[in-house]
């Protein structure tokens, strides 16, 4: 694209994707708590109910298990529901339908039926909402064969991945970071898709690879600019999809740089960065490593309320800078 692009916020980009889908395909319906006249807890659905009516932008009762299950059953029988959770934490109330039903139905039934449901999860900390409204649970769902799990970090990808999710015949879980909803960025007009399962190199570099997800991509880019001033040329990879993970992009970067730091907001232990690290360690890229891999992830703690404590439990720019400097200096 050569034309300067218009900018939309991440929330506006998601809304535009839903608007395009609702307008193009009668079988698309939105379901969720307070997504109608209220516009959604984070104003993502906004005024779509006025354009498409309550039959297609459906306020559900506060009923996550029932609502998610209704979306699953509707997806099996001809509709393409987009189900919005008010907070990703509330997925815990619906895990039965997500994990035992949506993810497994196609397989259990020998491929005789698909479940093209899209679920959207406002995720992450930084809003002062404490332990039950701030988690990053993508690894929970990323652990389940049958699901696809994406984490867009930009408005353009938020729109493109949502439209890709609607074209996917299987369940797609979209984790949207709440802090990103108001972030603006260039967004192409009209219909396009961002491929599920493809990472994006956000900054090319040769000294080390920073593989990040969601909000951490922005922190990694900020850190990379500072590091550039110090002569450390960091490559920043936006993973974008947690399952299926883009093995080739990550391995190619590690083969080039020989150094890897993973930055993710979910709890460090058994998290997305553990999988990225293992993927590298099990591959030929391991031979290219010049230093041990570093993981920066969430602390072994629920998300606390106090703002300073809240910042302390997830990776921040200074943490990334420190890790990168250590990594750049390390010799095996």
């Amino acid at each position: 694209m050569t034309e300067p692009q218009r900018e939309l916020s991440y929330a506006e980009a998601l809304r535009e994707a839903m608007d395009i889908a609702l307008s193009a395909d009668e079988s698309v319906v939105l379901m969720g708590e307070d997504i109608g006249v209220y516009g959604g807890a984070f104003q993502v659905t906004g005024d779509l109910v006025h354009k498409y009516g309550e039959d297609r932008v459906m306020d559900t009762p506060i009923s996550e298990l029932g609502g998610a299950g209704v979306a699953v059953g509707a997806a099996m029988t001809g509709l393409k529901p987009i189900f919005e959770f008010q907070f990703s934490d509330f997925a815990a109330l619906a895990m039965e339908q997500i994990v035992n039903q949506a993810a497994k139905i196609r397989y259990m039934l020998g491929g005789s039926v698909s479940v093209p449901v899209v679920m959207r999860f406002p995720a992450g900390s930084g809003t002062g909402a404490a332990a039950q409204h701030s988690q990053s649970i993508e690894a929970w769902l990323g652990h389940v064969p049958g699901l696809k799990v994406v984490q867009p970090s930009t408005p353009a990808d938020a729109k493109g991945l949502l439209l890709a999710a609607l074209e996917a015949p299987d369940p797609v879980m979209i984790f949207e970071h709440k802090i990103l909803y108001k972030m603006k960025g260039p967004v192409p007009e009209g219909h396009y898709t961002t491929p599920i399962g493809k990472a994006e190199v956000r900054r090319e570099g040769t000294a080390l690879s920073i593989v990040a997800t969601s909000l951490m991509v922005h922190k990694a880019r900020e850190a990379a600019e500072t590091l550039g001033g110090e002569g450390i040329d960091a490559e920043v990879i936006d993973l974008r999809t947690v399952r299926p993970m883009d093995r080739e992009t990550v391995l190619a970067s590690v083969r080039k740089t020989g150094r890897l730091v993973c930055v993710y907001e979910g709890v460090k232990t058994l998290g997305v960065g553990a999988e990225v690290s293992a993927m590298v360690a099990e591959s030929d890229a391991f031979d290219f490593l010049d230093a041990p891999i570093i993981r920066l992830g969430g602390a072994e703690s629920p998300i606390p309320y106090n703002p300073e404590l809240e910042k302390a439990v997830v990776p921040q720019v200074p943490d990334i800078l420190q890790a990168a400097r250590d990594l750049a200096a390390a010799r095996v």
Partner: protein
Amino acid sequence: MPEGTFDTNIPYVVRAYEPQALREALRKMYVIRKFEEGAEASYMRGLVHGTMHLSIGQEASAVGACLGLTDEDKITSTHRGHGHCVAKGADPARMFAEFFGKETGYCKGRGGSMHIADPSKGNLGANGIVGGGLPIAVGAALSAKRLDTGAVTVCFFGDGANNEGAFHEALNIASVWKLPVIFVCENNKYGMSTSTERSTSVASIADRAVSYSMPGLSVDGNDLSSVAEAVDTAVARARAGDGPSLIEALTYRWRGHSKSDRNRYRSKDEIENWMAKDPIPRFATTLIEHGLMTDADVTALEAEVDAAIEAAIAFAKESPDPLIAEVTRDVYTPGSAACTR
């Protein structure tokens, strides 16, 4: 008789259905019984890998509830779901093949007894999670309403599921959105070993309907005609756009919960009392009494089903096993991005 009245001595199904449909209903009841007896015998001979949940004694509720449905109408079923599958038109040969873990089975050997489904006949599948099918049934009803197909969904579940949150959420949503779904609770008195008296706060599960502003009716689940009459009434209501209903079919499973059950929670007398209320000879007698079949017809039908079950077992035994190389084939739709690792 003047129009609009009828002889109450004639059962509903005899008034409402063609004789051929009723003979077919009796055939399906025999298929269910003999399928499950065959499954049990196969299990004893080591042909079945997992466990099984038999519905022997409950055939009237499965067949009665599905009697008035078309292939466009959907059902969701339970872990005790063989009867629902047969009632909705499944082929016992492919059911046995699934039981034996074969590629020719309904789930290509990936699902087994607890996941038999046939979407081409409107059967969205049995479910291994108690209450798992309830919200899904409501979703299928939402599709029917939005896409204006005129179809209804019959949601089978057991008494155990009536205490799951999914039951209450599903009934509430179905009622609020006035969806064409019929909740059919097969109350066989026990959720595994725990009786409804010990687990459920209402005397009749049909009473739960009051909380969700829908009709609730408790019927003799061993009487095919009573089940069919209640479900047909609810189906008509659903098709007319008047929303969901809850029907409780009181019945009994003769066998244990699964193969591990030692029947420590119920008495021999209780089991024998219920076995005396066998729904199959009861329905056969109805057909004979109303001149729709003779004793000889019933005997011949039973023999025909015996032969079909034998052939079905042979088909399943001879069918190929799935290929280990294809173990992950149906996790994702072919051509869509799969997991790369």
